[in-house]
């Protein structure tokens, strides 16, 4: 096991270097001069040259990359935004809780929706529940997230006035003079974003859970358990669910990493100041450090999550760590 852990950790480090390297290089494909952008309002050529030297942009690319890595690993710094000179660490730090709230809350919601739908429809195939579930699943995975968000915002948020239509409230420490704050306001404002975010995943997870449960129901050991006379709910709980849901749990770990990106649309529609919107604005403003910072942070998260999931899976299933 230790062997596996070490191998996995090393690979994670390699992955991290690889992704940051590619990210860093790609930014040089941009039709923008980083030094000029960093110098920002500097007019003269001397100013641009000075900034260029300051940021190390006049050195060869590989040297710059090493500097970038060093600053990242040693100083834990992602640089400063070109748009407003704020530390990218600070901006990312402010945005993380918002996106985390959206993704984690959304994940809980989608599992709460997907589990009952998936399990029940698998246990009662071709019943009304099953058919209803299939319709929900199909529409959920086919409807554009953006459309669902806009519709919810208009009908639930505005027309029927049931929830706020946009905006984010801090759970703790709302800024001076903020119009809302605290857990109740926060949850109230997150209802529509959570729903919008969760529907797609709920549908695809419901489908996956349904398929897994149905397959497990056909397994030999289930037949054996039933033949031995075990009551149905014990069979379901102890044999079927546990085996059917294990792959789902691992998918969850991986999908949360993917979901970081998917939160962009929800954040744009509901004006949530999270990582997605930070990334979007930095792209529009050609704010390279912020773009890099968000990507590096998101990559770190994905790699870490993948690592954790792999390690858990290896611990549970010995075949994997011996491969």
């Amino acid at each position: 096991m230790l062997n596996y852990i070490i191998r996995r950790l090393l690979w994670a480090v390699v992955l991290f270097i690889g992704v940051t390297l590619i990210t860093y290089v790609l930014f040089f494909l941009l039709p923008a001069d980083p030094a000029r952008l960093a110098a920002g309002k500097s007019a003269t050529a001397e100013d641009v040259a000075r900034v260029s030297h300051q940021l190390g942009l006049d050195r060869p690319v590989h040297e710059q990359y090493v500097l970038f890595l060093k600053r990242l690993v040693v100083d834990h710094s992602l640089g400063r935004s070109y748009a407003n000179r704020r530390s990218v660490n600070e901006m990312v730090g402010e945005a993380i809780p918002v996106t985390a709230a959206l993704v984690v809350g959304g994940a809980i919601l989608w599992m709460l929706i997907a589990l009952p739908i998936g399990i029940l429809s698998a246990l009662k195939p071709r019943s009304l529940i099953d058919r209803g579930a299939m319709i929900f699943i199909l529409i959920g995975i086919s409807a554009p997230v953006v459309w669902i968000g806009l519709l919810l915002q208009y009908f639930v948020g505005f027309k029927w006035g049931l929830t706020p239509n946009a905006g984010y409230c801090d759970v703790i420490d709302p800024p001076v003079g903020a119009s809302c704050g605290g857990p109740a306001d926060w949850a109230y404002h997150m209802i529509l974003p959570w729903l919008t975010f969760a529907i797609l995943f709920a549908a695809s997870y419901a489908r996956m859970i349904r398929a897994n449960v149905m397959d497990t129901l056909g397994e030999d050991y289930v037949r054996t358990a039933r033949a031995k006379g075990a009551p149905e709910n014990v069979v379901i709980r102890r044999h079927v669910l546990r085996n059917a849901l294990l792959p789902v749990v691992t998918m969850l770990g991986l999908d949360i990493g993917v979901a970081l990106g998917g939160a962009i649309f929800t954040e744009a529609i509901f004006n949530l100041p999270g990582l997605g919107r930070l990334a979007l604005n930095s792209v529009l403003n050609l704010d390279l450090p912020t773009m890099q910072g968000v990507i590096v942070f998101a990559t770190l998260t994905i790699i870490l999550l993948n690592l954790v999931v792999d390690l858990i899976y290896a611990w549970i299933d010995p075949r994997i760590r011996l491969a």
Partner: protein
Amino acid sequence: MKGKRLLGIALAISSLSLLLVAAATAGPTAKRGGTIVLDMTTDVDYIDPQLSYYGETWKLEATTACKLMNWPDKEGAAGAVATPEVASGLPLVSKDGKTYTFTIKPGFKFSNGKAVTAQSFVDAVNRFANPKMQSTGVAFLDIIKGAQAAVDGKAGSVSGVKARGNKLTIQLTKASPDLLARLAMPFYQAIDPTLARQIDANGINQYASCGPYYFASRTPGRSITLKRNPNYKGGRTANADTIQVNIGNSVDVEFQNVEKGTSDYASGGIPATEWKNIVAKYGLNKKDGRVQVRPQLDIRYVAMNHSRPLFKDNPQLAKAVNWAVDRQAFSAQGGYLYGKRTGQILPPGMLGYKPAGIYPLKVTANTIKQARKLAEGNLRGGKAVLWSSNAGTAPLQAQLIQYNLKQIGIDAEIKLLPRAQQFTNAGNPQTASFDMTVERWGADYADPYDFMNILLDGKQVTQPQHNNYAYFNVAKYNKEMTAASLLTGPKRGVAYAALDGNMMRTNPPWAPLVNSNDRIFLSSRVGCVTINEISGTGPLLNVLCLK
């Protein structure tokens, strides 16, 4: 008996009159308190007083700044005259008109308790002129003696402004009739000694102010909060306790917010098609009504970048664009009461406005033909980059211009940017990679200098940050503009009108489109609606109160 009755009546009368007096004076105090909420679609450029040059920020700074001269918190003509605020009265002016002496009224304090002195204003001018600040507004310093040297880095401070006790002296390079109006711009507001020492071209986000409010906090991209200045003793109203600005909502969300009452003012606007509905629903320009529309000294135009190959020394193409753009359709995109079409640089109501009928205000088959004729042979490849804001109606308006340009053979690629980013990048020669940009300009004060010279004087185009988005630099016009700015009286208007007509006729820097109105949508929660377009668009935020 008689005496007692008389006494009783006297008492009754006097208590009645006391009550009446109390009722009469109780008005303003009864409406204080609460939080007013504004929605903006995109973030402001800065809240730093010497850097910010954006209408949305200036409406906030109208509540936080205290200035030598200011616009009264009144509507109409009464609000359009620069009136002494921190100055105890009109300044003493020397005979040659080049030296102004102000006396500072005591009693004004910053939100951190420090007193406002003559030095506070000197500090403001010095910080404004400091080349490290790289302020866009430095064009407004040009008449102050020693300012150019400071801006060029040759002097450490502006020699023409001096403080001695409570007296402030300003020396000009030439007699200038609009100095008092300029002093009412937020650039010249009093700043406290701490801010005076903070020199940063990226702008300071927290500082003490001396107006009825101060900036309590700013989270870039998210919110700005203003709170009542506890140390303010000047005469201006400060009704709400807090003014909260929320940033980032789209125009349809802003409309929903104000309609429902979760916001009080849609500062970023509402969907263009909603104006007709809300005018029908809530009426127009009623006292404290929810929908208010005022004309303003403003212009929406397409600036053509004369420093890039497409329009450089290419007056025929510039004229062709003026023939091709569909001003009527552009206005229609904005919805009901958007504004009036125009083909001139100066707006109606401004000294020097003279409609010359050079370009058509309506597109017909003939106008398209004429436009094509002018464009023929001058297309130079026919490819262009068109910049526009990405909020509200702007993308649609940009596509309209794109379509018009296509008719004369120009294939324009649209680039949408957040508004503050658009004009900041456009005004910086290093980042101005556009051929045309759809712009808007609102007058800072009612004088053609603020339109013509600020926007079209060629000497700015090399500055790190400026407002000459057309990069228009024609020596002849530069000279004429400077000459016109020295004239007074009707001659001033005549000179500017001639400039306007000549430029548009022979070598247009822009395609002027519409003079737009200030359209305001308010929630049902607010009252005390007072609008002063010179001071800023929208209702005066320090006067606005919760009903």
